[in-house]
């Protein structure tokens, strides 16, 4: 008798959460492209987008000024927010799996503190041009995680997860202290530093997109490819080893990918918090507990979430902009409490368990 495959609850309909996330992403993107000081109807937005598809030779009668608004101002902003959201959400999901800790987010190992210090150094010492700011932020974030990783590994392989998280806390504290010191010494720049820390897509351009795209694409591809490995690692280092994988090597690859992608993302967006936690947990609660589903769905859902958050950030107090970090935190903090309460209520498990 040929066995009919039984599949896990989240496995049977993998396409449903993915489809919901994708529809949300497209719908929110379209709203974001239409909305702004100048309202542009969806038909003209679509016409403009089609006109920019190579080889299609689509002709639109949308006024040139509206085309410029859609293509030069709003589209890069939507795309950049989508890329950053996808990266932060999937990086968060990957870290939660890797460290078997539901509180893990992509900033766990100090990438935010390192990027913050790098950005502050550039703003304080870099002169008027801020062209190098993303480079400094990227390098700062990557170096911080490398330091955390080396210290954590030196702390012993057995307690890998714990020692590396503690190392992350220490490295982040040290770098934040240095960053605060630099910032206090140079109070004229304080507003610029805060603007960067709270995050914004207000100056997003296609050049920002092309700058971070390679990192985010590579890193997202690596995380996607490791989605099943994240499930395997959930049984712990030793048992995962008896299943034929090298846990330490696998973890290093995932950490490296998540770090490069996250550092690239924050270098153009600033430190946007909570995306990695809320999106991953929403997916976990609705689509199932397997990382085979969580990673890809969180990627698309994270893009939808951050495009939406950016839309709120630039419309709620128009013409002024609210920092996007404020928007995500305002949604994220209450949501996070709800997740915690529901997890405890549902299974009576502690926060540390995953």
């Amino acid at each position, binding site marked *: 008798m040929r066995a009919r495959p*039984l*599949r896990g609850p*989240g496995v049977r309909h993998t396409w449903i959460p993915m489809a919901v996330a994708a529809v949300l992403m497209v719908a929110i993107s379209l709203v974001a492209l239409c909305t702004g000081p100048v309202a542009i109807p969806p038909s003209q937005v679509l016409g403009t987008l089609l006109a920019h598809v190579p080889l299609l030779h689509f002709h639109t009668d949308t006024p040139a000024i509206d085309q410029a608004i859609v293509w030069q101002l709003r589209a890069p902003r939507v795309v950049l927010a989508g890329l950053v959201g996808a990266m932060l959400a999937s990086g968060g999901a990957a870290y939660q799996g890797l460290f078997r800790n539901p509180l893990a987010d992509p900033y766990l190992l100090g990438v935010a503190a390192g990027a913050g210090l790098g950005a502050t150094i550039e703003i304080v010492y870099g002169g008027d041009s801020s062209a190098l700011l993303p480079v400094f932020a990227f390098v700062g974030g990557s170096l911080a995680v490398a330091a955390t990783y080396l210290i954590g590994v030196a702390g012993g392989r057995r307690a890998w997860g714990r020692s590396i998280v503690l190392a992350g806390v220490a490295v982040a504290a040290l770098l934040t202290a240095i960053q605060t010191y630099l910032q206090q010494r140079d109070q004229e720049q304080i507003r610029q530093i805060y603007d960067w820390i709270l995050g914004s897509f207000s100056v997003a351009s296609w050049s920002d997109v092309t700058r971070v795209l390679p990192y985010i694409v590579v890193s997202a591809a690596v995380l996607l490819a490791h989605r099943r490995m994240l499930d395997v690692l959930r*049984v712990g280092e030793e048992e995962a*080893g*008896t299943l*034929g994988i090298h846990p330490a090597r696998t973890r290093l690859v995932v950490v490296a990918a998540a770090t490069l992608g996250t550092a690239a993302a924050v270098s153009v967006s600033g430190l946007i918090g909570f995306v990695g936690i809320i999106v991953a947990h929403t997916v976990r609660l609705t689509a*199932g507990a397997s990382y085979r589903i969580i990673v890809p769905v969180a990627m698309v859902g994270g893009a939808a979430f951050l495009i939406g958050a950016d839309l709120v950030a630039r419309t709620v107090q128009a013409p002024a902009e609210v920092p996007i970090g404020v928007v995500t935190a305002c949604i994220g903090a209450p949501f996070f409490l709800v997740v915690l309460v529901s997890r405890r209520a549902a*299974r009576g498990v502690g926060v540390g368990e995953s």
Partner: protein
Amino acid sequence: MTRLGTVIRLAERRGARDAGPPGGSAVVELDALTVHLGGRAVVEAISASVGRGEWIGLIGANGAGKTTVLRAVAGLVEHEGAVRLDGKAAATMSRRERARSVAYVPQSPELPADMSVFDYTLLGRTPHIAYLAVESSDDLAHCTRLLERLGLADLAHRQLSTLSGGERQRVVLARALAQEAPILLMDEPTSALDLAHRVQTLEIVDELRREWGLTVVSALHDLTLAGQFVDRLLLLAAGTVAACGTPTEVLDESVLSAAFGCAVRIIRTDDGELVIAPRRSNGSSATPVCFVNPRSLSPTRPPPETGVHDEEAR
């Protein structure tokens, strides 16, 4: 189990015993296996071999080295001496290759609370799935058949945290069996189970071993069950082999008393099975407990009032 069934099983086992090692085709070979943990030799120069389709039970007091031997075979601890799997030096095998030939059921497996039984079983397919690939429909079908075979099909969608102890043990076994490894290592597979579930779990292992020709090495606390199920026993004391042989050879009052540092009584039932019972130092039994340094293995014999009659067992 009917009386007839027991007789047949015993007869079959005796047949397997005669064909098995020492001698025959050894699937697991330990050659002067020594393991140092924290600067102390936990396992010292153990040599043993396990034949194809054989079930070997590791017995011995806590700390005698049972778990360490299993972990060495599974490739989880560094060791001196050689471990050969199916004639091949384990040290030269890749992790993946090793995972295809040895499946390991730890004593306290890590069970992710919200993972489904099916997804957990699927983890066992890891050595057969390319590193960055996802499971194929064959892998899914394999796990489905396995869960049905183990009577777990109805639990496939349940989260691991909602299972009873007996169900958990079977699910962990399912994950190990999903590896399709010819060698199954189990560390105290029944220690958390009640009597009925202990027997049930071991019966399943025994059935599958016969069906699929598995070679089983398991550490067992329950000496009576060990005597009922395994082909040969390896009695460890302080990291060395204190005795090795058929259950009737090893389950001897003086040998066990010396190795466990506690007086035991061996009772033979009507159908020839051995029951190992401790003797209390006061109360019903008059025999005092003898505390023996296991390493010395001095034969402090308790009085032979209910002695074993080896002739009967032959």
